[in-house]
């Protein structure tokens, strides 16, 4: 049955154009400060603080190159990628198992446990850092990828569980039952039947958590060391060169560091948007 079109075609088009312009203008307004950072990264170093500010200039990549070659920057980039990606993947895997359990078996205390998981995000990081430091010291996990990954996995579990449970709830349990009837193992059901259907949830959980882990500073600073520092720490400890803020450096690092995430958000946007519906819908958002 076709819908009656309530508005006249030309009105509708005008509305669409207005909306499009509004959306784009909004996006650009929010992006402007970031654009300024990127512009600063591309400006010749000694013009960064010019007043009146330089809006037109010949872009140079020398700041970006300098930033990459500075001290341990490249190593820190690699560290960030390693601990962020591994930790979030691990968190999603482990959370998938738990969410499946919560959704299908509803073990005793499910609601309480879910609430408790969420509550781990409540306290400011500063409160936990020293206890963690002391714990890691005892376990000899300081300045180790194992330690950091374990930490960031825990960091990413609560949100992952919440998202994935919603999605798994949305996959009919008839799939599981059918599978069982046909003699499939539980593992087969989970990974071959259910998992593919919660793709959006997996992506959403991944993107969301990786943003937080990617940009996390305090724990990386305190629990890590030269072998495991990521870019946020690298940036923070090198903000000043000789007492003054090195704006070109900060801008360059900021620009380079946001690129991977921006690309992920661009290419996986569809999944991200659907994924945050917590499983209440599986279509377009």
């Amino acid at each position, binding site marked *: 049955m076709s819908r009656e079109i309530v508005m006249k075609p030309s009105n509708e088009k005008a509305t669409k154009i207005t909306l499009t312009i509004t959306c784009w203008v909004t*996006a650009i307004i929010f992006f402007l400060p970031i654009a300024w*950072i990127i512009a600063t990264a591309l400006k010749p170093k000694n013009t960064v603080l010019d007043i009146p500010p330089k809006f037109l200039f010949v872009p140079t990549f020398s700041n970006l190159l300098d930033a990459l070659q500075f001290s341990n920057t490249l190593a820190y980039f690699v560290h960030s990628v390693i601990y962020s990606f591994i930790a979030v993947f691990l968190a999603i895997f482990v959370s998938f198992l738990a969410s499946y359990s919560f959704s299908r078996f509803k073990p005793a205390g499910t609601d309480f446990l879910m609430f408790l998981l969420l509550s781990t995000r409540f306290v400011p990081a500063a409160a936990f850092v020293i206890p963690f430091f002391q714990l890691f010291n005892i376990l000899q996990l300081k300045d180790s990828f194992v330690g950091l990954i374990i930490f960031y996995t825990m960091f990413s579990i609560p949100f992952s569980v919440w998202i994935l449970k919603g999605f798994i709830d949305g996959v009919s349990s008839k799939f599981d039952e059918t599978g069982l009837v046909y003699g499939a193992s*539980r593992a087969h059901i989970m990974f071959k039947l259910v998992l593919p259907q919660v793709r959006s949830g997996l992506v959403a959980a991944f993107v969301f958590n990786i943003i937080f882990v990617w940009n996390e*500073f305090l724990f990386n600073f305190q629990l890590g060391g030269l072998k495991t520092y990521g*870019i946020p720490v690298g940036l*923070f400890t090198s903000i000043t060169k000789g007492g003054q803020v090195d704006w070109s450096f900060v801008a360059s690092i*900021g620009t380079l560091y946001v690129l991977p995430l921006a690309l992920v958000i661009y290419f996986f946007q569809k999944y991200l948007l659907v994924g945050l*519906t917590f499983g209440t819908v599986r279509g377009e958002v």
Partner: protein
Amino acid sequence: MSARTIEFEAKIKEKPKSTSKKNRGISWLLLTPVLIFFALLSILPTLWMLGLSFYDYTLTSYKPPSFNGLTNYLDFVKNEQLSASVSRTFLFLIIAVIFQTLLGILIGVFFWKNDKMPGRRLALTLFFTPMVVTPIATALFWKLMLDPTFGVINHFITSLGFERTDFLTNSSLAFPTLIVVDTWMWTPFMALMTLAALGSVPKAELEAASIDRLPIHRQITTIIWPHAKFILMLGILLRSIDAFKTMDLTYIMTNGGPGDTTELIALSLYRFAFKSFKLGYSSAVSVFLLFIAIALTAIYLYVLNARKKAEESA
């Protein structure tokens, strides 16, 4: 119906309880990894922190930790400076989250209504960047942009003929400026939540409503809101909790200043824990904050569940 099908359906309807033991075993097995992580890396530090809160323990003092009961808590409550910090944080939280939510919903609706927009993916990506760029970098650059001497914002203000404004060290402007920057940073999050929330509304119901020529405000109250509110409220809750913990922004942009007009509680906590290393005292403050957060969440969940139950019975 074939015999096979009947047999099949019967098996499914059975759901024999005798396998529930096996299921229970599997269910706990699947939970084990998460539970281990949780116990070791969440429960343990929390208990540690709880314990520490009853001690007078300064990491850098020659005095060993000594039990002092509720003294830390009493000191915290008596300290007018800190109490002011807590109320200031609540004020920040309320104003910021309200702005972010309203603006986020507005923008979310724009994008939602415009799903065939050219370059929508790019626009949304650009729109989301504020919450994705490393906070250290954005906070530093906002500080630069707002600088009276070198900042681009003042450049525009003065070229339009207005007076050069000092945003971050002016006692009456610093707090609002902080809220504006925080809003810039997190409105995209609320818009994202709005998009998801609106997306969770069943399309079928919406189509039916527009066929029935239901006026827009009735559509909102009877169809959109009942579905969308769960995700939206979850978004508000998450943002509220995070806003309560805001520290990076205020630390880098104003360091709690001028004076203490932007001293948020997470920053004060950071100072106790890391500048003075008064671990006992900072633990007490953290326990207090934990209780506030739990209370907020409990209220939220209660309201949500109460509504859910009311609807289910309706």
